[in-house]
C-alpha cells in the first residue's frame, strides 16, 4: 500500500517555518486568524517585504510574532500602537499591521488605541478578543462578560465589558468591523479591507480560548465556541433595523463604520513639505 503523502500547508512560505509548530493550545483560535491573515495577504498580493508587523504581549501577539515572516516588532505589553505610529511616520509606504489581544489593546494599551484612532494613523489593527488574559492563565480582561468566573473573579466578574469596536469608531477610525473565528470568509475580506483602506482600520476578532477561559465558563472546546459564535451573532446590516430588545445579548458582527477622513501621516507630510519650501 502506498503511504498517503501529507499535503504541505499551502501558505507555509508566509511563515517562519523553522519556528513551527506554533505554541498555540489545542482548540485556540489564533491559528485560524493566522491562516485567514496569510490567505488575505496572498489574495491581495502584498509582498511581505512591505509589511511591518507590530505586536504587543500575549498569545494573540504571537500570531504574526514570530510566525509571520515579515519585519516584526514584538513590543512591550499594550504599546504596539505607539511603536507602530513611529514606524508608520517614517515608513508611510509600508503596510503597518498591529495584532494583539483584548487585554493588550483595550486594557493596558487602551489610551494608545484611542489616540491612534483619533489621529487616523494609517495602521491596520486587529484586536484578538478572546475575552480573557490568555497568556497569563485566565485572569479577567476588560472584555470579559459581566458575571463570568475567571482566576481573578472567583465570584463572578462585577464589571461590564467594553464595546471596543463602537468605541474605536467613535474615536475617529476610518474603518471598523467585528467578526469571529466562525466567520472566516467575511473575516478575510474584512482583513483585506483594513489593509487596503487609508487611515486607521480596526477589526475586532472574537476568538476562542478554551484553555484559559472556556473551561471556566462551560465551553471546553473550540467547536463549542464556534457554535456559540454562529448562533449568537447578528450582522450589522440586519441589526440596523432591529430594536435593542430584539438584539438582546447577541453580538453584532460586520462593518461598524466606514468613512474617508484623510490619513494622519499624509496630513503630516503635506504640512511638513509646506514648511520646507
Amino acid at each position, binding site marked *: 500500500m502506498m503511504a498517503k503523502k501529507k499535503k504541505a500547508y499551502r501558505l507555509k512560505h508566509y511563515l*517562519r517555518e523553522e519556528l513551527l509548530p506554533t505554541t498555540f493550545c489545542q482548540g485556540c483560535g489564533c491559528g485560524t486568524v493566522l491562516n485567514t491573515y496569510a490567505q488575505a495577504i496572498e489574495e491581495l498580493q502584498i509582498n511581505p*517585504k512591505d509589511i511591518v508587523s507590530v505586536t504587543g504581549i500575549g498569545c494573540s501577539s504571537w500570531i504574526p510574532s514570530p510566525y509571520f515572516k515579515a*519585519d516584526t516588532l514584538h513590543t512591550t505589553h499594550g504599546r504596539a500602537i505607539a511603536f507602530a505610529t513611529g514606524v508608520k511616520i517614517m515608513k508611510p509606504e509600508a503596510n503597518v499591521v498591529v495584532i494583539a489581544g483584548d487585554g493588550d489593546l483595550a486594557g493596558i494599551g487602551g489610551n494608545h488605541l484611542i489616540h491612534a484612532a483619533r489621529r487616523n494613523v494609517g495602521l491596520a489593527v486587529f484586536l484578538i478578543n478572546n475575552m480573557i488574559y490568555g497568556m497569563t492563565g485566565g485572569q479577567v480582561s476588560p472584555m470579559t462578560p459581566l458575571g463570568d468566573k475567571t482566576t481573578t473573579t472567583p465570584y463572578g466578574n462585577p464589571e461590564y465589558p467594553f464595546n471596543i469596536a463602537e468605541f474605536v469608531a467613535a474615536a475617529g477610525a476610518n474603518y471598523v468591523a467585528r467578526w469571529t473565528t466562525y466567520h472566516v470568509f467575511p473575516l478575510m475580506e474584512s482583513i483585506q479591507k483594513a489593509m487596503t483602506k487609508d487611515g486607521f482600520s480596526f477589526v475586532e476578532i472574537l476568538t476562542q480560548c478554551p484553555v484559559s477561559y472556556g473551561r471556566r465558563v462551560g465551553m471546553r472546546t473550540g467547536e463549542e465556541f464556534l457554535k456559540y459564535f454562529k448562533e449568537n451573532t447578528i450582522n450589522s446590516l440586519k441589526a440596523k433595523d432591529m430594536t435593542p430588545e430584539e438584539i438582546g445579548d447577541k453580538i453584532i458582527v460586520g462593518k461598524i463604520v466606514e468613512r474617508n477622513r484623510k490619513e494622519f501621516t499624509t496630513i503630516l507630510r503635506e504640512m511638513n513639505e509646506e514648511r520646507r519650501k
Partner: protein
Amino acid sequence: MRHKYDEKKIRRVIGEKVQFVQGDASAVYGALLAGCSFFAGYPITPASETAELMSKLLPKAGGVYIQMEDEIASMGAIIGASWAGAKTMTTTSGPGFSLMQENIGYACMTETPCVVIDVQRSGPSTGQPTEGSQGDMMQARWGTHGDHEIIALSPNSVQETLDLTIEAFNLSEKYRTPVILLTDGEIGHLREKCVMPEKGEFEIIDRKGPTVGRDKYVPFQADESLVPSMARFGDGYHVYVTGLTHVEKGYPSTSSAEDHDRLVRRLVDKIEKNRKSITMVEKDYQKGSKIAILAYGASARPSAAAVRKLRRKRKKVDFLRLITIWPFPNEEVRELADRVDRIYVPEMNLGQLVHPIREAAEGRAKIIQVPRIGGPLHTPKEIMDAMRKKA
C-alpha cells in the same frame, strides 16, 4: 521616507552661528546637527522648550515631530521610528522619565539606537516642576528592570548640552543602545553663549548596516565589536525584534540559561568593554592636593567656583568633573582617591553618585557628601563651608 542629512539646510534652520540661548534650545541644535530626523515627546516642565523648538525646526530640517499621548508612547514611537531607519530622540523630565523606563529597557534589549534627554526636576513625584535637581542619576542607571548597561552623559553648560547631544547620538548609533542625556532645570533654562560647531569639528556616526545578503544576515550576531549590524525595516531582511530573551537570529528563547547569559552579557560587555573610550571627564589637579571636589552637571558650576576661590586663598585642591556618568568612570575616580585624603561631592540630591564614587574609591579617600535639594544651586560658599566643617 529616507532622511537625507542636509547640513546646509540644518544650519539655515538653526540660524546664527553664535547664539545666546537656553540649554533646552542648544539640545535641539545638537540633535539637528547630529542628524535627528524623528522626535516624539510629551510636554513637561522644564523640558517643554525642547519639544516646542523641535516642533518648529525639525519639519524645516526635513524631519518629523509628533506629540504623543504620553511618555510611554513617546518612547515607543522613537523605538519604532529608529527601526524604520531614523535617528530619534525624546525629551522629558522626572515623571515622564519614570514612565519611559519599561521601553528604555526594551531599547536596551533590542539594541535600538535612540536618545532620551531628561531635564531633571525636583522630585519625587510631581515635586517642584520648575526647580532643577540631579534626582534621576540612579534612575538613569537602574530605572528599568533587569541586568543591563546604559550610557548617560551630563553637561554643565549650554554649549556642552549641544556638544553632548551630538555625542549622545553618536554613542547610541555606535553601540546600538539608548543614550540618556541628564541635564536639569538649571542648565535647561540657563541662557548662555552657544557656538555652533563647524563641519570637521564634530563627528557624525551612523549605525552599521548589514554587510551580507538577505539569506546570510543574522540580525543579532555580532563581530568582535559586540555590536550587531542593524537592518532597517522595509529592506527585505524580515527582521524579528523582540524584548524577550532571543538567540542571534532574533527568535525567542525564554527558558535557556545559556542563551540568556550569552545575550545579556554581550549587551553589558559591548558598553563595559568600551568604558575607556566612552568616559569623558574634566580634570584639574594640583600637585600636593590633599582635598578634592568631585562634581557633575549643574552642581559642577558652583564647585568649580569654590575651587577657584580656594586656590585664590592658596589652598591646594583637585577638581574632577564627570561628563560621562554611566558607565561610571571608576578608574578616574580611583586615581583621584589615590591622590587626596578627602573628596567632597556636591550633588543636587540627598546622595546618588556618592555611592559609586565611594565604591570606586575603595576606601583610599574619605568621601564626603555635600547634598542640596529643593531647587537653587549650591553656592560656592556653601561648598567651602562644608569643606571647612569636615576638615
